[in-house]
């Protein structure tokens, strides 16, 4: 039985869903960011899988994946900076406590 694209797709879908669960369900802000990282990684795996299985001669898939790396890194940096800033002000990193959007 050969490995086919479907395996990778299911895998990345599963990873993505787990990441989504982490984003939606975790209390700690940093844990939420971890969930986001999982999701981004799942996307990257998906991209690369599509590249390898569908257009291995083009390099667009990998290039795209590189971009995702860069963006993820940037996003993590900024997010953690924000979390630290919030922690300094409110002395908490529990997402539920940061509810200033509430009327």
């Amino acid at each position, binding site marked *: 039985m050969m490995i086919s694209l479907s395996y990778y797709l299911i895998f990345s879908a599963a990873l993505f869903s787990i990441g*989504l669960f982490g*984003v*939606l369900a975790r209390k700690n802000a940093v844990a939420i960011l971890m969930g986001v990282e999982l999701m981004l990684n799942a996307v990257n795996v998906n991209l690369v899988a599509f590249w390898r299985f569908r257009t291995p001669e083009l390099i667009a898939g990998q290039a795209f994946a590189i971009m995702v790396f860069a963006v993820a890194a940037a996003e993590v940096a900024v997010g953690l900076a924000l979390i630290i800033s919030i922690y300094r002000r409110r002395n908490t990193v529990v997402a*539920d406590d*940061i*509810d200033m959007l509430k009327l």
Partner: protein
Amino acid sequence: MATETLIWLIPLPPLLAFFLIVLFTNRSKWISHTVAVGAALLSWLGSMVVFFRAIRVEHFGEEIFASSLSWLPAGDTWFKIGVQIDPLSAVTLFFVAWTVLMIFLYSVGYHNYGQPKGDHDRPGLQPHGATVSDAHGHQHTVPSIEPMYSRFFAFIGLFAFGMYTLVVSDNLLTLFIGWEIMGLCSYLLIGFWYAKPSARAAMIKAFITTRVGDVFMLLGIAYLYAVTGTLNYREIFYNPEVLNRLAETPSYIVGLSTAGLIGILLFIGTIGKSAQWPLHVWLPDAMEGPTPVSAMIHAATMVSAGVYMAIRIFPLLSAGAEHGMTTAMGFVAFIGAFTALFSATIALSQNDIKRVLAYSTISQLGYMVAALGIGAYVAAAFHLVTHAFFKALLFLGSGSVIHGMEHGVYHTGEHIDPQDMFNMGGLRKKMPLTFWTFLIGGFALSGFPLVTAGFWSKDEILADAFGNGHILVFGTLALAALLTAFYTMRQITLTFLGEPRTKAAEHAKETPWTMTLPLVILAVFSVAAGWVGIPEHFPAIGGLLPNWFHEFVGGTLLELPEAVAFNAVPLLTSLVVALGGLYLGWLVYRNLPAGAKDPVEEAVPSVHTVLKNKYYFDELYDTLFVRPAYWISETFTSEWMDRGVIDGFLHWVAMVTGIIGNALRNYIDKPIVNGFGDFVGESVKKFGRNFRVIQTGRIQQYMIGALFTLAFFSVLFYYLVYTR
């Protein structure tokens, strides 16, 4: 100036005087009386000019002075108003102008012009005298000037306008207008001293009683207009076709032709206005007014207007019966003769000097009406003219007497009624001018032969009655003439002859020239006015002077009425009753001492009481008409209908509305309308409150919500797009 224009102008000066006095000159007494007397003088002048021009026209009855204007458009035709002087109105104008002028002048003195203001006088009450101190410091009470002086002249000015309008009018409508204006002025002037309750009662009584007559008259006018389409005298009374048609058409009442019914309806107006039985009750009470009023309105002019109108409509009354008596005329004759006798009997028992004259007036008007009833057209007109002069004279004379007595009352301070004849006596010495003029007037009233106007006119009536075979009327009128002479001499004897019965009578004084001059002038007329109507076949002097009056006034009718042939019986009867009555009156009442009772009262006390109470007619009318009217007004209409039914209904409507309103409010407005509004508001609030929970501020929850929505819509999208 053209005669027609002059005729239009005659009524205007007194009207102008009325307005000027009311609007401008009310404060100044002398300006007011000057304006009023001046206006009367102008109208008199105009009337004299017109009269003298009229008598110069040959066959004046055919070529009268007339002028009319188209006034209101009424369908195809015009309502015209206009003026007309025919022979009848010419002679009427003559006596009206003279008597009005005399009375205006008299009023200046009567209301004590020139006297000081009274001590306790106020407008609405008779003047009560003013206290003055003379050179020696003695205090005297003297007559005081009337507080409402100018107002009097304003009212009599308006009255004069009404009378002149009535006389110069050429149709029944403007006659009626003048009639009503005079009725109003009569009301105002009877109640001139409005603070006296008796005056107030009398003014209302006069107005309402005459109003009863006026209603029927208006019905007659309307009926006449309906059947002929016009109210103009010339077109009806001088028009044989119209008269014949009216005489031939039967009316709603069996036995009467249309002409007869209209005539009777119009005549009922005369019954009211000229105080004939049964509407006579107002005239004696009208003596509450000042004496010039009594003289002018209730002797010379207004009551004469009733007879004038009756004479005017004579062609209608007599239509259908050639020289005979129609049913209408019979009715008229009955009323006239009955009234003449009836009120003459009452006059016997009256003690107030003015009351006697009032009943006398009613009686004499009865004479004129009776004369008309039997067809003696010219005689009725003749008596109208002469009566105006001597009755005005008598009333003015009585006013002079009362003034003299009041002077005595002020002087002595006695508390007696200056109008009661039993308090007078011997005044011939104190007031000679008044005495002689009053005597002349009294003799004229009694029909003293030859030298008084009353003799000629009364004699002619009696002659016509006898000559045409109306014996019952003749007898009644002769008896009335006897009584007339009797009570007249009674009056003269009690007042002027003998000795004064009270201190006040002793100190009576003659009145000023403004009052005595009119007396003298009217006395001249009372003597001479009869000589224009001496019958042609009168023994000795008949034929010396032509019977101008008969020729002239008779020309008013289509056919000149025949002069009745001379007969000795009525002449002798007339002489006997006149002289006999005068002698009897003097005999019974001469030399009555002070405090004595009336001899007639002593002789027949029960009869005298009935007469004195005027046959209890006032009480009868009170029970029959006045009390029920009050009951209807106070109880039936006011309490039951107005407050009970109408107000009750309104209260009920209000109550029902209130109930409905409350019900609507409590069952519909509050629960449903408000409830709905509140419900909407509350549900929005509740929804908002409940929905607010999703705004937690927690972004993880927001994300969950967003993803769920996304899932829902993607499923929906999938189903809508891909499976359809």
